[in-house]
């Protein structure tokens, strides 16, 4: 029995190492956008971003993860990673992915952090005069309610890039 136990421990280690390899687990520690297209669900988002004005300036994580502290960034990454893995494994996602309030807040914060110069007056105005319509984000309105095409275009259904082949990294 002792040998069977040793063998089964080795098997667990082996399967785990293989799992790390198969799932490209370590790639998720990087901030490389191609890690996001390990799964096909992000192809549309990657392809549209790749053809957008943001491609040379901001990668996926620059907008989608909080940038205020390393701890927050890693916590958000782990939380998203867990949710995405569950959705991917049990196929609980639909063709139209919608952003969560939590993620919307992070993105809005990041928009403002880069474009602070441009929106400083709007920030001041919203604090002084505007009635806050959407309490989940700064300023009370999401930037992309007006800037609708940025950066993923207005069509971002995950079947919208069939026959596109643009996931070849430029």
């Amino acid at each position, binding site marked *: *029995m*002792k040998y*069977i*136990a040793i063998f*089964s*421990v080795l*098997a*667990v280690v082996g*399967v*785990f190492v*293989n*799992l790390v390899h*198969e*799932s490209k687990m370590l790639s998720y520690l990087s901030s490389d956008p191609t890690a996001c*297209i*390990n*799964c*096909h669900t992000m*192809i*549309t988002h990657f*392809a*549209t971003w790749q*053809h957008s004005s943001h491609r040379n300036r901001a990668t996926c994580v620059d907008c989608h993860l909080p940038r205020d502290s390393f701890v927050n960034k890693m916590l958000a990454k782990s939380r998203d990673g867990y949710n995405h893995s569950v959705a*991917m*494994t049990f196929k609980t996602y639909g063709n139209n992915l919608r952003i969560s309030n939590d993620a919307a807040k992070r993105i809005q914060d990041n928009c403002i952090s880069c474009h602070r110069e441009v929106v400083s007056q709007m920030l001041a105005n919203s604090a002084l005069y505007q009635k806050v319509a959407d309490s989940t984000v700064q300023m009370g309105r999401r930037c992309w309610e007006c800037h609708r095409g940025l950066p*993923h*275009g207005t*069509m*971002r*259904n995950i079947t*919208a*890039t069939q*026959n*596109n*082949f*643009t*996931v*070849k990294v430029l």
Partner: protein
Amino acid sequence: MKKPTIVFILCVLALVPMVLLTISIRENKAEQQAINAVPAISDSETRSSEWGKYYPRQYDTYMQTRKSDKIEDVLKEDPALIVLWAGYGFSKDYNKPRGHYYALEDNINTLRTGAPVDAATGPMPTACWTCKSPDVGRLTKRDGELEFFTGKWAKYGDEVANSIGCGDCHDGTTMKLNVNRDFLKRALDAEGSLKAADATHQDMRTLVCAQCHAEYYFKKTEWEDKGEKKVAQVVTFPWANGMSAENIEAYYDDINFVDWTHQLSKAPMLKAQHPGYETFVTGVHSRNNLSCADCHMPYVREGAVKYSNHKIGSPLDDIANTCLNCHSGTEKEFKAVVARKLERKNELSLLASDILAKAHLEAAKAWELGATEEEMKPALQDIRHGQWRWDYAVASHGGFFHAPEETLRVLGGAINKGQDARLKLRIILAKHNAADYVAPDFSTKEKAQAVIGLPFEKLVEEKKSFLNSLRQEWIKQSEAKGVYDPESRKDMVLKTSYN
């Protein structure tokens, strides 16, 4: 329970979900790979419809080039050209280019390619297929470049079956832009300012076009095929001295190259093909690092997909997505600016062709009156240079826009050379008591054909019998060989200047 048993049970409990997860990940990865795969298309696949199965948007827009189907007879517009090209194919038939979809069809239908009756009859060499079809790349690989350039045009009539298409610009396995005509690489290396190996993706978006939209001549090259001596007529770009009209003129003069001896004036003539690339690089758009594709293949958005429009044609058809990407202004203003550029070019071009045609006719008169070769030589050399420059300036069709300053400068040179020739000829005519000689009228296509004695009706008869016999054989044979998709010629009607 004993300790090892507990360890064993724990391990099994951990293993089961991990193995299931691994299986799930592998399934997802296979799905991802299938979705992301770049379809591998065989290197020898020349049927654009096969590529179109994987690239429907590019293919659909490419097929739209069939809408550019109007025949515009240049010889009718300016009958002086019939005189300029007397004794050469272009005096028989010359139309403005139609869409890429028709490139092969028009090459086969023009009176210039004549009426061969079998694989060995002329008048043109195989090289005349070079820019018409992706089959050329396939045949060059299969038979070797020298064999491809040996023999008569009709030799490959049943092999060259698809008009300019996907395989002319793309590598089938990677879909990257690809120059498959080696003569362009050799010319770039000889010229030196952009070595073929140094070309960036942006350069390639011009160079794939430059494979064909450039000046060339057929360089006679002797070679040995299994002990048998053969002469190939290899398409060669005369760029070794540079790409300007004067550089290329010097190149041809140095090797005493003559396209044909003029039927009337006996001048040793040059025919400019379509120096589109050579003139484009002098223009302001090229100097700002724009490529052909930037204006002729603007990006299109369709839902979440962005791709380049393969309906290659005039950017003026889509000013909003071409000019206006960089410039401000209205479509109307742009059309007016370009129209004015064309008017300026036409004004000088018509002047030059009229002067040069008269020079040819005056030279013919001088010969008739007994002028000697020695007397005539300087004037004939002026005619050669003058007509070369005029042709270089106008033959690319787009030069007036791509490089307006260069086009007008070269036309100025053409007019000057032409008038020089006429001055010299007038002295010769005066010596032979014909100082007041007036060249015959060539103001219509018919009059000009009569002036050079062109047997037009006969040429048309011969061509029609070729189109009804050997041409039909070619279509059947290429279909039998499987190199040709009958769908690609669906609803095609015969459109020429003579039917």
